[in-house]
């Protein structure tokens, strides 16, 4: 009996050790979130949804602002403004930060909720998603994330044929997909359809989320300067967005007043490229990031 137990335990220890060792191979190709939870606490952050995750490139800021920014944006599902995201930002922030730079990407969807009562934080969909479950956000390797969030897909740490997304160490999500006009048109049509049939009828502006955006600004202001940015999107998506929230700037007035600057890039004349009308193509993301960096470098406002 003793032999059986000891040999079984030995086998389990070897296999578990091997398994954990394989998990440590996880990298930016494994999934679009993992790397963000493996870096040390950060002093300068980009906050927002997938628009900023793909659309703001931290490396652009280094040459202009001489600061290393970290993109801590996720998706509209995971990281709209609210208690879960604010709590996670608090964990990711280096408490010794003094002159930090924080870029908060804002748009109507990031302050909306698709639940019955849009102002009930207990009903927010992100309560059951990844950020809510993540206690540890600054550990490399981050076994908490790997074991919880890669369930059923641990093999991706070993065999990953994903060539579409790569999450950089600075948190930027680089997306490489075909950009010929027909591919872009197909994706854009799908995205527009999705926003028209899913978001437009089901989402409502949430005052609770706006309050949490303000709390996020107030919290980060004690560690540095906070800038609000509305990233550019395709014309059709902007039409839907304006239809949904024509008075967006009015809704954001209190937040804009709290912040150290607000840059609305939807009103500029430059022609940017989008992968699906909603997300900036990586070349345009670099351009936009340079514009934001130069704006901050000039003193913003």
């Amino acid at each position, binding site marked *: *009996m003793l*032999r*059986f137990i000891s040999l*079984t335990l030995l*086998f389990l220890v*070897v*296999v578990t050790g*091997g*398994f954990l060792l*394989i998990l440590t191979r996880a990298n930016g190709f494994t999934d679009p979130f993992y790397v963000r939870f493996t870096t040390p606490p950060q002093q300068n952050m980009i906050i927002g949804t997938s628009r900023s995750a793909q659309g703001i490139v931290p490396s652009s800021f280094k040459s202009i602002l001489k600061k290393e920014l970290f993109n801590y944006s996720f998706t509209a599902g995971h990281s709209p403004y609210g208690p879960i995201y604010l709590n996670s930002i608090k964990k990711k922030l280096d408490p010794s930060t003094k002159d930090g730079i924080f870029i908060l990407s804002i748009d109507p969807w990031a302050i909306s909720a698709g639940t019955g009562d849009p102002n009930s934080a207990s009903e927010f969909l992100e309560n059951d998603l990844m950020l809510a479950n993540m206690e540890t956000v600054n550990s490399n390797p981050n076994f908490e994330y790997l*074991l919880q969030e*890669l*369930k*059923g*897909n*641990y*093999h*991706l*740490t*070993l*065999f990953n*044929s994903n060539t579409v997304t790569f999450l950089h160490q600075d948190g930027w999500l680089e997306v490489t997909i075909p950009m010929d006009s027909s591919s872009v048109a197909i994706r854009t049509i799908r995205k527009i359809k999705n926003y028209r049939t899913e978001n437009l009828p089901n989402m409502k502006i949430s005052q609770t989320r706006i309050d949490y955006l303000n709390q996020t600004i107030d919290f980060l202001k004690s560690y540095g300067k906070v800038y609000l940015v509305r990233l550019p999107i395709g014309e059709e998506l902007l039409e839907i967005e304006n239809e949904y929230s024509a008075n967006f700037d009015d809704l954001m007035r209190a937040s804009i007043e709290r912040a150290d600057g607000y840059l609305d890039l939807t009103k500029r004349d430059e022609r940017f490229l989008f992968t699906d009308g909603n997300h900036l193509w990586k070349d345009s993301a670099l351009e936009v990031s340079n514009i934001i960096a130069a704006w901050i470098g000039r003193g913003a406002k």
Partner: protein
Amino acid sequence: MLFNSLDFAVFLPIVFFLYWLIAKHNLRFQNILLLGASYYFYACWDWRFLFLLMFSTLLDYFTGLKMQDAEGKTTKRFWFWLSIIINLGFLGIFKYYNFFVESFAEGLSKLGWKVDVWTLNIILPVGISFYTFHGLSYVIDIYKERIKAERNFVDYAVFVSFFPLLVAGPIERATHLLPQIKRQRSFDYAKAVNGLRQILWGLFKKIVIADNCAEFANIAFNSPDHYYGSTLVLGAVFFAFQIYGDFSGYSDIALGTARLFGIELLRNFAFPYFSRDIAEFWRRWHISLSSWFKDYLYIPLGGSKGGSWMRIRNTFIIFIVSGFWHGANWTFIVWGALNAVFIMPSIISNTNRSNLDIVAKNTALPSLKEFIQIIATFVLTVFAWIFFRAENLGHAVAYVSKIFSSSLFTVPEGSAFIGARVHPLGMLLLLTVFVFIEWLGRRNEYALESLGLSWNRIIRWSFYAVIALVTLLYSGKSEEFIYFQF
């Protein structure tokens, strides 16, 4: 509680230690522990149905005793039919009521009569088909005086509820399992190691083979209109491996777990996809159910006595009933009937018992003739599985029609399966390795039973560790087993 869940990974060692370390010298305590653990295991699904299981156990226990003690044949017959009617009544209500009512209404509507039917929103208690069949075989065996009624309630309840077999078999017989429950059991190292090996192989089959094949099969079956016939053939083949990996994987885990407690369960699978004809396939697939129907339905109907027509009739009856046992859907009935049609040539020509041994028993490879026979049998089986997997007959017919279109001869669309978590080529590689290991181990009860036993220990352990690692790499989702719905 699923065998492939973290809960079970905690539950099993706890019960194992209590069983061998605390209750090791006390058979009564061991059996009470097994019963308690089994009821807890079942209650984890839905504690309300535990009462149904207990009622079914009590019913068969008491009717068994009443039949045993009955002085006249009439009394004995009364208790026998009482048990049969109540057992089948519960099965009928929970599993078949809506099917019969809806089919009746549909039949009437085709004749021009519209009727409003009263259907019930019934949840199917997990394992009801399995434990009902346990009880039925026990009651029938007592009635036929093959066995004596069990007087110890705990022992009988463990026979019905023993957790490894409770929810998806194998369907045990009192003659096989009860004596083991009543016998003093002592820890046997070799048996326990064998059990762990079988559990490991079962988990690999379920998590790596079945769950990954399921993704490919689901893509094909969810929208057959979108794909070439050749792609749908691949989808059906993936389903064939899914259901084999799923169900035989479950059986391996059940048998391996039982072995850890010193109990041998009936073998349920014997490498069915290496069969050379359909008759052999059915001697190797879900053996405990096939033999149950043979003993309790086919033989009482007259079996193969009484000429060819009798054999044909009885064969059709058991295959259709067997299909119906799987679920209240015409697809299962057609699946059963198709298998009856496929087996018919060997029944009529009396060659249904010509392949009793495993193929290539004394050689490394099959002969060309055997290979062709294996492929032909597999093709027939896959064809029948389409009906088993389809949502309804219309879906099955659409799927088959699309297969037999001109697109059958087009190269399958690999891109159709790109969304699955494993690359299609990776899946084919996994299946090749799997079939190779199964082939190497085909002479044993399960593939890993003695494979590698003659190797150097480090190599053998490394081999097991690789299997365990690959299983872990695909683990975490805890997908349900297909046969739980039956």
